[in-house]
């Protein structure tokens, strides 16, 4: 009824290949942008920022990054936590070494450093695929965590072995450390998420995305019709790690503030982001958002409903969360491998024809 592309004609190839070809979608996207940038910063408080919005924004960046690698290029990776740690430690070293440089530049540089590390650990993908590649990236995960634990240079020889984000400003507003206002950290992360999502979308609808998907769908045929597999896989690793590095940097500097690497960026983190991608939808930018939102929201909702409203013991609620996530992964893998994004697409397809489906 409301959701129609009828009468929405395209007269140029530009407008046909745009991100939201349907007018309704486009306006909804603008509304979301206006709410996110223009309204939420004014009503945000610390609880909302720390329990929901910041983790959502940061995990969404990581999920987009991993989705590029796993969902678009078909290279399974379990090294997400390790790559996030690279971003975090890179931004920490940069923040402490160059305090006067803007945080924007530091975070982007941290992404760049992670991209280089990602390419390095992506090299095995030229030889191996599937489970074997997953195991190779798992090695990256453990190696990186070990490295940041064992080499004191990375944590500036601090006694605790932790890294702590010093206070830094952007345009005169404090955005890291304990005194940062919620709206500033929120906006800073939101800017990065918006840019990352736009870049990811542009890459995946163009030549780069097509070479990635060609490698994913049939790598031998792709090579025979002219895709350079080395270039395709390495760019996928680079772009993916770039985003994951940014999310790691934000996770440490703006969200946690203090990080012990094994705890914050362990193997659980790799699986968490992978679950976001699977539940949200492989090969979909929107799916990355949906997956991140779902897994960030789930523990909060369970806590509010289970512990606060029904009065269950908190440890039961925590275990229940694990059970639900595990069950959902199985359900999604069997019933709908393309995740929430596919459910959303099917719903839209139904809405288009509603109320006259025949």
């Amino acid at each position, binding site marked *: 009824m409301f959701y129609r592309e009828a009468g929405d004609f395209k007269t*140029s*190839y*530009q407008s*046909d*290949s745009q991100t939201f070809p349907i007018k309704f979608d486009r306006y909804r996207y603008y509304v979301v942008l206006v709410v996110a940038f223009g309204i939420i910063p004014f009503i945000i408080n610390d609880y909302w920022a720390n329990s929901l919005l910041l983790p959502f924004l940061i995990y969404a960046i990581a999920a987009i990054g991993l989705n590029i690698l796993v969902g678009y290029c078909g290279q399974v990776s379990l090294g997400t936590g390790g790559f996030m740690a690279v971003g975090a430690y890179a931004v920490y070293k940069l923040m402490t070494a160059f305090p006067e440089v803007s945080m924007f530049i530091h975070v982007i540089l941290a992404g760049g450093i992670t991209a280089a590390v990602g390419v390095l650990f992506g090299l095995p993908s030229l030889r191996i695929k599937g489970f074997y590649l997953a195991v190779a990236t798992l090695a990256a995960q453990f190696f990186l965590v070990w490295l940041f634990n064992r080499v004191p240079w990375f944590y500036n020889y601090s006694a605790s072995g932790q890294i702590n984000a010093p206070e830094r400003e952007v345009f005169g507003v404090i955005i890291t450390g304990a005194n940062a206002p919620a709206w500033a950290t929120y906006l800073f992360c939101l800017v990065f998420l918006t840019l990352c999502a736009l*870049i990811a979308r*542009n*890459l995946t*609808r*163009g*030549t*780069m995305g*097509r*070479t990635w*998907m*060609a490698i*994913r*769908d*049939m790598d*031998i*045929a*792709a*090579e*025979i*019709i*002219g*895709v*350079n*597999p080395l270039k395709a896989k390495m*760019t996928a690793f680079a*772009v993916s790690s770039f985003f994951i590095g940014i999310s790691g940097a934000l996770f440490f500097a703006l969200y946690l503030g203090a990080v012990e690497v094994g705890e914050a960026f362990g193997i659980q983190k790799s699986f968490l982001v992978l679950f976001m991608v699977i539940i949200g939808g492989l*090969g979909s930018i929107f799916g990355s958002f949906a997956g991140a939102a779902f897994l960030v929201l789930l523990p909060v909702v369970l806590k509010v409903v289970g512990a606060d409203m029904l009065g269950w013991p908190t440890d039961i609620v925590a275990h229940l969360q694990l059970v639900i996530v595990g069950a959902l992964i199985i359900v999604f893998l069997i019933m709908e491998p393309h995740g929430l994004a596919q459910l959303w697409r099917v719903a839209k397809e139904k809405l288009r024809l509603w109320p006259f489906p025949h």
Partner: protein
Amino acid sequence: MLDASEGYITEDGRKIGGVVMEMKNITLRFGGVVAIKDISFDIREGEIRAIIGPNGAGKSSMLNVISGFYVPQEGEVWFHGKKRPAMRPYEVARQGIARTFQNIALFEGMSVLDNVMTGRLNFMSAGLLSQSIWRGKAEREEVENREAVEKIIDFLEIQHIRKTPVSRLPYGLKKRVELARALAAEPKLLLLDEPMAGMNVEEKEDMSRFILDVNDEFGTTIALIEHDMGVVMDLSDRVVVMDYGKKIGDGTPEEVRNNQEVIDAYLGVAHD
């Protein structure tokens, strides 16, 4: 009738040019199995060249050698008068050799349009930065190549399915999309591996018409493998016949038809 450099005139009056690709004494082995034994033949500009033979004769291996997927142990591949050095398949594709596959090898997760656009990678050179902001060269290339792709989509009459995911298409259309993807590369040499396998008569007629049209309109040189003898004899200008990895015949369809060895290979004769 055949002249080494000048080419020849076909029965239906088309002019065939000089040699585009020449295979010289190709031998391909897989361990102890000899798939191709000392085969030489050439493909001339503008011609439709068929490779036929019974199952397991080495036809597909031959096509894989041409497209660079297999590297022969012995022999040379000459392309446009130059010996081709050992190169990766994607580099061969960059030189202007496109192909379709016996078992359709489309990218199932992508739309028809994206599949065909992938065929135009040779014409895309925008950098990562330009692509990530969708401005400048990337946007320009996207539009230019989309125009070229739309022409091919029109030509093969698949406009109605351009946004459909390939996985939803029936077999015959998939074959056509695969041809579209190969054509999108604007190849100098087009390799078709059993373009009519598993098709009904009507689909075969359509596909034959497309192959002739491609050859006629774009002047594309075509090498094809096909089992349907009627189709092969009607379409092709010259035919190579293989059996057990050896070349047993080479010439016009008429010559091949009357070749005793070919008749033996197809109708069966006691091998001693």
